């Protein structure tokens, strides 16, 4: 698809020590606090001293005015490799790719990948109104519906064009809720029925309450290092078979109906050396169910426009034929800012290493994780995906 040179495999690099700091609807703590909790959880899980962490990649929306640089001093780290990835829901996959190359090339040995955000009572409104220059100039003044309004338009367009129905989106949400019921700290604790879903209050037509993630505070982290280092530390790890990343793809589509995955999926599968039917667990980015449907299509699980049929003919619970967002995803766990872009990765790592926070999937050898983020104007700009494998 993209042509050019053949990419180097991620030989010898692993990801391990997934950490999820239990989310809270609102927090009086700062983003720094949440990031510190995740980092502390990470070094305890890995059995490392903070001084041994020589690489850090960080993502957060609510860290301002600081960036990753300020966080090093705030938390007493002295990394020799540092990256700040302000890519929202794509941050996890992108952070993983950056960290993997740094380790592979020897620029750093132990890279902590961390995302964390707080959610003060009014921070969501503030994040929306100043999200981007285009949002400030051309989106927020139009009803201030936030991402809900942007995705309402994307969802409506997708329904018009491809015949998806609200019930199809409902099926995705309901399965995720069922998966989340096994997670003690999920934001959403009650089972969701199709009737609940269909009759929930409208937010932005055609989106209703349960199509929308609930903003919350939380943090996620994992470690990227060499496989022999993970073995020496005796922590279970996953291998990285392939990754992709893309920004501002298909800029000429009048309304977004595909993400950057559609541009790069071929390369993802080629690099991984597997086909979609081999994948045991899929963790998509699920800020809205229409994006999930697009990922099924754009990542090659079905063709463009077949998303609705694909949803109708599969089951997405951990015990289903297509285990998907196995801990409930953001739709049931809550959206902890940039940490939402990490949730799929930490969950996939836990499933592949046999330590899920919820129910385990029947088989967990190979997982696909995708990320999506940054509604800069009318569409999500950043997409990414990774294929992970249980270390043999």
């Amino acid at each position: 698809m993209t042509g050019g040179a053949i990419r180097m495999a991620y030989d010898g690099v692993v990801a391990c020590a997934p950490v999820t700091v239990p989310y809270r609807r609102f927090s009086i703590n700062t983003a720094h606090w949440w990031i510190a909790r995740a980092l502390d959880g990470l070094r305890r899980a890995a059995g490392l001293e903070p001084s041994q962490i020589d690489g850090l990649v960080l993502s957060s929306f609510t860290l301002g005015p600081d960036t990753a640089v300020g966080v090093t001093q705030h938390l007493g780290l002295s990394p020799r490799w540092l990256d700040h990835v302000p890519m929202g829901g794509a941050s996890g996959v992108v952070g993983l790719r950056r960290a993997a190359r740094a380790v592979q090339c020897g620029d750093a040995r132990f890279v902590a990948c961390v995302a964390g955000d707080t959610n003060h009572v009014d921070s969501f409104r503030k994040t929306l109104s100043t999200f981007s220059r285009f949002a400030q100039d051309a989106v927020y003044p139009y009803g201030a519906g936030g991402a809900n309004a942007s995705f309402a338009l994307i969802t409506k367009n997708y329904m018009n064009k491809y015949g998806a129905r609200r019930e199809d989106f409902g099926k995705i949400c309901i399965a995720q809720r069922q998966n989340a019921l096994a997670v003690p700290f999920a934001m959403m604790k009650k089972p969701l029925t199709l009737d609940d879903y269909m009759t929930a209050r409208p937010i932005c037509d055609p989106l209703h309450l349960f199509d929308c993630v609930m903003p919350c505070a939380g943090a996620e982290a994992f470690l990227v290092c060499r496989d022999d280092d993970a073995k020496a530390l005796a922590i279970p790890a996953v291998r990285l078979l392939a990754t992709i990343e893309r920004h501002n793809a298909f800029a000429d589509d009048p309304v977004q109906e595909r993400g950057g995955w559609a541009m790069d999926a071929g390369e993802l599968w080629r690099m991984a050396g597997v086909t979609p039917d081999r994948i045991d667990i899929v963790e998509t980015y699920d800020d809205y169910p229409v994006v999930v449907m697009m990922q099924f299509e754009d990542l090659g699980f079905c063709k463009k426009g077949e998303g609705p049929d694909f949803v109708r003919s599969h089951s997405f619970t951990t015990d289903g034929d297509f285990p998907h967002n196995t801990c409930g995803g953001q739709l049931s766990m809550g959206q902890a800012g940039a940490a939402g872009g990490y949730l799929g990765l930490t969950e996939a790592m836990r499933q592949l290493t046999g330590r899920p926070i919820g129910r385990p999937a029947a088989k967990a050898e190979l997982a696909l994780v995708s990320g999506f983020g940054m509604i800069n104007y009318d569409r999500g700009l950043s997409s990414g995906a990774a294929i992970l494998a249980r270390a043999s």
Partner: protein
Amino acid sequence: MTEPLARPKRKNPLRRTRQPLLPQSVRSRTAHGLTAAAAQGRFELQRCVDCAAVFYPPRDACPRCLSPRVPFVPVDDRGTLAVETTIHASTDPYFRERMPWRVGLVRLDCGPVVLAHLHGDAREGDRVRLDLKLDKGGAPVLVALPAKDTPHMTDDRQLREMTCDPKFRRVLITDGRNSVGQAMAKAFSDAGAAIVFVGVADAWKPFAGQEMLRKLAGVEIVPLDLTDTESVTELAEQNGARTDIIVNTAEHVRPGGILQRHGLTVAREEMDVRYFGLMRLAQAFGPAMRSRGADGVNSATAFVNLLSVYALMNWPAYGAYSATEAACLSAAQCLRAELRPGGVKVLNVFFGPLDTEWFQTVPPPKVAPEALARAVVQALQRGLEDVFVGDIAEEVRARLSVNPKALERELAG
């Protein structure tokens, strides 16, 4: 079909007046290119000088060829409403109390896809035309209107948030003795204003046009002398809480520059009627208007200044007059900033010589008072901030943007 607006009932004096809120009005510096166009009612987007790409939102370089030459220019306003949504929930206080609110993506024939507010008669799949308006906070926004005018379309709830339509509003014309004030009263009466208060100083002195004025529907003559602080304050005490639009028609036109005049008597009079008159009016009525910017169908909405276009560049034949008008323009800019928090617009209407006795010796083209009045009503219906009426005013505007020095030199004669 737009539901026609119902005439608002008399306000319950015990009810709290809803405080005005504004949509977010912060814009990038580049996006103020839209503000400039919207203020004058032009539909403009950026078009690349080098590759002709039209794009939106505002950018600092062309997204097709990276050229920095990306001016705002008039472009085709037609397009198709690709997809719409009705927003039922918002975190923003202004929109929260105006839910539900419709927006949609419009695919413009000239290229870009834009997010726009939707007129009630613009539906998904329809052909639409886009308009650039100033919203309640004075910031530029795109509105998709039905391709062809529909009945009562100016009554649309969302559209009316962005206009200052006189329909069902109460208007104060400050001076009904002159022909401009009288033309203005007729134009507002015709435009469906609920009441047109017309100020007349020394009402016992008869004046031409008095009878016509009294016969106009909705007109009520009130005592008002802008040179008398007490008179202005008294009227504001009586009518301030039910004045939605003010049109300051007080004029003081005398030919001559600085050297022809001996002493300051005339200059003082000019300043008293025009500049201090504006300040008296603003101080007496402004605070109440600013607090009533969200007071229902007949909320306070606009303060209109009639300004000679020579406020922008002195015309020495009427040099002292031009200087007074320049002072008024500067005060109007200040007032605009001060009334904005209430969602009240300041409309500046620039005109060349009027077809009135004080410009008797000036050759045509001249602006008829009726034409000026029509232009004011139309500008309010469209929600504009700056309009230029007549050929001379248009010419001055155009020349100011090309070579102001040449204009200065040639106005000197």
